[in-house]
């Protein structure tokens, strides 16, 4: 069953840069899909069009039966965003807040503003945040400030924050690009394991072919804002990939 359906999505930035030139994509509720491409191929823009951090210029996105691109009301848009977790290349934590507070940011979407003002989170949210920290292996660090952690630990906070949302999908933007390869693998392992446990589909943008092959069931190749590959990871043989990369590197 199609869970996320992207139809002919285009994005032209005010600078005139055409980041996406009409991309189609469909994924089911159980899939882990890689968005593969070099820098500037439109991966990040595509991910941000799904939760409309970037407004698409044209096209249609359906998610869980809702036409996301048709939502006008800001409140409705925020409700929709609550159901999509996002993990970022540069972790995007508030450095001066503690690990626990950064994780609790994941439930701000449904927390009233006065609770946010007083930092008076609901008891069950706090308990769940501590549990989530435990699941990502940071339970001993919850009182530390985010900027006292190592890169790998910081990305774990990012993962915990996304899981706090109880998301129906995870949009993951270059999760390992700010990390060294060994730590990057650990983060990918953890993220894939947790997503599988919770049955959350993932759309992961990567530029590393090895990671895409190791962790995803389908690979979508982007190049210059155009989809150039869409097939099961097991069907993707070295020649096709070589071809994609050849085209990609020629661009």
């Amino acid at each position, binding site marked *: 069953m199609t869970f996320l359906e992207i139809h002919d999505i285009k994005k032209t930035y005010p600078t005139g840069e055409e980041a996406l030139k009409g991309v189609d994509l469909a994924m089911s509720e159980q899939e882990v899909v890689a968005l593969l491409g070099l820098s500037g191929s439109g991966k990040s823009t595509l991910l941000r069009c799904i939760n409309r951090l970037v407004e698409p210029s044209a096209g249609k996105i359906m998610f869980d039966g809702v036409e996301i691109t048709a939502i006008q009301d800001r409140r409705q848009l925020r409700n929709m965003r609550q159901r999509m977790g996002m993990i970022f290349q540069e972790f995007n934590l*508030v450095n001066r807040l503690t690990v626990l507070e950064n994780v609790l940011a994941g439930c701000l979407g449904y927390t009233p503003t006065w609770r946010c003002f007083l930092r008076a989170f609901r008891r069950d949210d706090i308990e769940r945040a501590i549990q989530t920290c435990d699941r990502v292996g940071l339970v001993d660090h919850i009182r530390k400030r985010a900027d006292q952690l190592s890169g790998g630990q910081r990305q774990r906070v990012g993962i915990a924050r996304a899981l706090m949302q109880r998301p129906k999908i995870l949009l993951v933007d270059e999760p390992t690009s700010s990390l060294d390869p060994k730590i990057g693998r650990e983060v990918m392992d953890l993220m894939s394991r947790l997503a599988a446990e919770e049955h959350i589909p993932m759309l992961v943008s990567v530029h590393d072919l090895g990671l895409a092959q190791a962790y995803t069931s389908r690979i979508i190749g982007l190049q210059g804002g155009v989809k150039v590959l869409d097939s099961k990871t097991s069907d993707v043989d070295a020649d096709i990939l070589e071809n994609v990369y050849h085209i990609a590197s020629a661009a």
Partner: protein
Amino acid sequence: MAEIAQNYSSHGNPLRERRVLTKRYCRYALAATLLSAMAYHIFVVETDWARMGGIGDILSTTAEFLPNLAFFPVIVAPLFETLLIAFWGTALASVIAMPVAYLAARNVTPYFPITYPLGRTIIVLSRSVHELIFALIFVSALGLGPLPGIIALGCRSIGFLAKTTSEAIENVDRRPIEAMEATGTNPVSVFLFGIFPQIYPIVVGNVIFQLDINLRRASILGMVGAGGIGYVFSEQMQAYNWNNAGTVVLGIAIMVIVGEFISNRVRTRLISGVGGDRIGAE
């Protein structure tokens, strides 16, 4: 290089051409005329040199301001009142300045064409009106006493605090804001949880700085009836009790110096704490 040198010699020295020189000397002449006209007006026309007497007269009159320490106990309570006016005025301004800063920061203002100019206008109004004028207005409206002084200082301080805070907001790290927007957080909560923690040390530093300045401002508000030590000063001046007036000046100086010493220490500690020890951060 050779070509440039050749061009240079064929054009002569472009800085000493006749036209350039004429223009420059005309400017000097204009500046000299203006300066002497201003000096003549203030020092010759408007100053009554005859009434001043000799150097000795000037010095002996000034010496009459030497503090009378016996008067000191009288000014302790008004000095304390001055401190409280400065404190509450700053507190009032800090609370009001936050939403104003939110309006006046380009990156978060809710509706740019209306709310941004609104925020900027409040800042400019607050900064361009003198605290004594605010005090006169509120003394008229509310009567004598410290309350109009507090409100006057509040109005005068909103501008500085809102301006520096809005600049801090404009310089925050965008990335955690993006992450919070992605979780469906409303803009006010994003401000409270994503922006405020980033600007907090800057805001607190500026509030303390403003408190320091307001201590000085509060000490003259009494001259127009808005409470504090200034009333004692003008009272003693009008009664020609120069020594007592000198005591008031001494008291204000002590209070301001102590205040500055404390606020400097607190601010230095705060600023050195910015960023913390960044272990393992990129």
